[in-house]
């Protein structure tokens, strides 16, 4: 922004420097301990063994990594299935959800009778909480599906459980985007619409393609990159449906970690999990940074 390019002396005096340091000191300390140290410890942990109380018992080199590779890429291993499921989940949600977010947001941005009501209702899964919806739907499935279709097995534990989870998560996922995207579309400078009009844009899809998408591209990039960072997390609703007892077919990488940590009181399994985290981080970091770079470099421009 222009007003931040040239700062007057009031921002650059000593009191200004002290103010910056004082204000950011606590957040930086917390960041150093719970982000930097925590991740560094994860790296160290991956080369050691722990006893059941969590004390380091010895350096083991790359043994934990070997163990992780056996678990992650071996046939029939739960972790291998979790990784596959996470990737499948992310790709499907990405392909199905993103076009819908943009199409719906565009219509809301253009306004229609009842658009305010729609935005209020769409926010309900966030307001009432995902857990409430999950419990309602779970009860609905348990009682209404057998009532309507006697003899059907419970979808949460049947062969279509994974499909059901994806469908449910997409259904629940519109709240944030339908709040942020229309507001971002409203912030696109009017001159872009005017020049597009002069250039002959007279159809919705043209406006969406030539004005809206380039105008909100930084926001789309933000959402895509942040979404890509969560590529291994899998469905956020697994704990809500199953607590720690999900069937194998729906396991994700993130859920596998949660179950492993929460269902054993011993810390002996942590080093292998930490090694796995390091391996996946080494794969994902270049992937995400390359994607971010490409999205910024080759995206549509407003010119």
């Amino acid at each position, binding site marked *: 922004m222009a007003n931040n390019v040239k*700062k007057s002396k009031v921002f650059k005096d000593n009191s200004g420097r002290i103010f910056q340091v004082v204000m950011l000191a606590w957040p930086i300390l917390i960041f150093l301990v719970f982000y930097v140290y925590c991740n560094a410890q994860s790296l160290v942990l991956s080369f050691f063994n722990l006893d059941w109380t969590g004390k380091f018992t010895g350096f083991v080199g790359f043994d934990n990594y070997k163990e992780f590779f056996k678990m992650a890429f071996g046939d029939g291993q739960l972790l291998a299935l979790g990784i596959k499921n996470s990737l499948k989940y992310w790709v499907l949600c990405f392909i199905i959800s993103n076009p819908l977010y943009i199409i719906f947001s565009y219509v809301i941005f253009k306004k229609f009778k009842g658009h305010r009501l729609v935005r209020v209702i769409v926010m309900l899964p966030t307001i009432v909480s995902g857990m409430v919806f999950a419990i309602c739907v779970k009860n609905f499935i348990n009682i209404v599906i057998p009532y309507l279709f006697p003899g059907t097995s419970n979808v949460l534990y049947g062969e279509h459980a994974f499909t059901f989870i994806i469908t449910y998560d997409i259904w629940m996922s519109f709240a944030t985007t339908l709040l942020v995207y229309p507001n971002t579309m409203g912030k696109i400078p009017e001159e872009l619409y005017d020049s597009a009009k002069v250039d002959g844009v007279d159809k919705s899809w043209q406006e969406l393609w030539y004005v809206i998408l380039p105008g909100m591209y930084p926001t789309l990039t933000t959402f895509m990159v942040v979404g890509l960072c969560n590529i291994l997390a899998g469905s956020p609703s697994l704990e809500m449906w199953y607590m720690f007892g999900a069937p194998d077919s729906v396991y994700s990488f993130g859920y596998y970690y949660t179950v492993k*940590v929460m269902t054993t009181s011993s810390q002996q399994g942590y080093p292998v999990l930490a090694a796995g985290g390091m391996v996946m981080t080494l794969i994902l970091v270049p992937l995400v940074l390359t994607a971010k770079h490409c999205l910024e470099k080759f995206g549509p421009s407003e010119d």
Partner: protein
Amino acid sequence: MRKKRKNPNKIVEFNSPADVIYRSITICVLFLYCLTLLYVLFWLISSSLKYYDDYILYPLNLPSKDRIRWQNYVEMFGKLNVTRQTDKGMVNWGILAMVQNSIIWSLGCSIVNVFWNSICGYVCAKYNSKFTRFIFAVGVFTMVTPIVGSFPSAMKLMKDLNVYDKMWFKFVQGPTTSFAGMHFLIMYGIFKDMPDSYIEAVRIDGGGHFTAMLRVMMPIAFPTMIALFTLNFVGSWNDNGTFLIWLPSYPNLSFGMYYIQANANSMQIGPNLVLAGIVMVSFPTIILYFVSQKGIMTKFAVGGIKG
């Protein structure tokens, strides 16, 4: 600066047949989507008022006038308690204690999160130094760098520091990265758009940096902070994951319902009672949302994260 939209309500409508069809279909789909959400809540409320027999035999029907059972709510109020084995031994919490945990957690988290996100957003937006640029870049880095699998390490760290399962520490700690995330970006954007001349005026009048921030800039950003506070409050009220993993000894209402749903059979609580409990737990957030939804709807726009 680029020209902002003068009149956001003056939106050009395209009226070719293809545009009308596209718009009509999308609006219909949106309304259908909304109906599915509303139907779930409608079914929840109607089922929470049924007798167990009616719930099982006629799950899709409304309860008839003489078969409305308000007693479900009274019974659920008495049965809503959590008994759980934790590192501190067996803990037992009744509904009033869980309400207290919910209120303390929601208020504490919302105040702490909005406070730190606003402070960091303000300093990074208004003080263009190498230091703040570095902090902003670190924040962006954490947002775009997927470090996975550090959960075991985080658990070990909390236990080693003896702060695992301590609610007070979660408030003192605040967000792990206050200078990253959507709420930080929103506050950063708000302060970035405010003219620096306000701060300069305060400084010329003899005021300090704190005065400029607290007396001038924060009040201007206050409506957005309130909207963020509301969303944080609702999120914290509904939060059960934190209580499942990080605070097992302090169940809130949301975790209580989650626990009861998972153990309904062993606790001999019928599904109609579970649904009544859910209505009770959700009620405060729905009221809060409808009171403040206008502010929430207009305050949120997120920019890019170049860095």
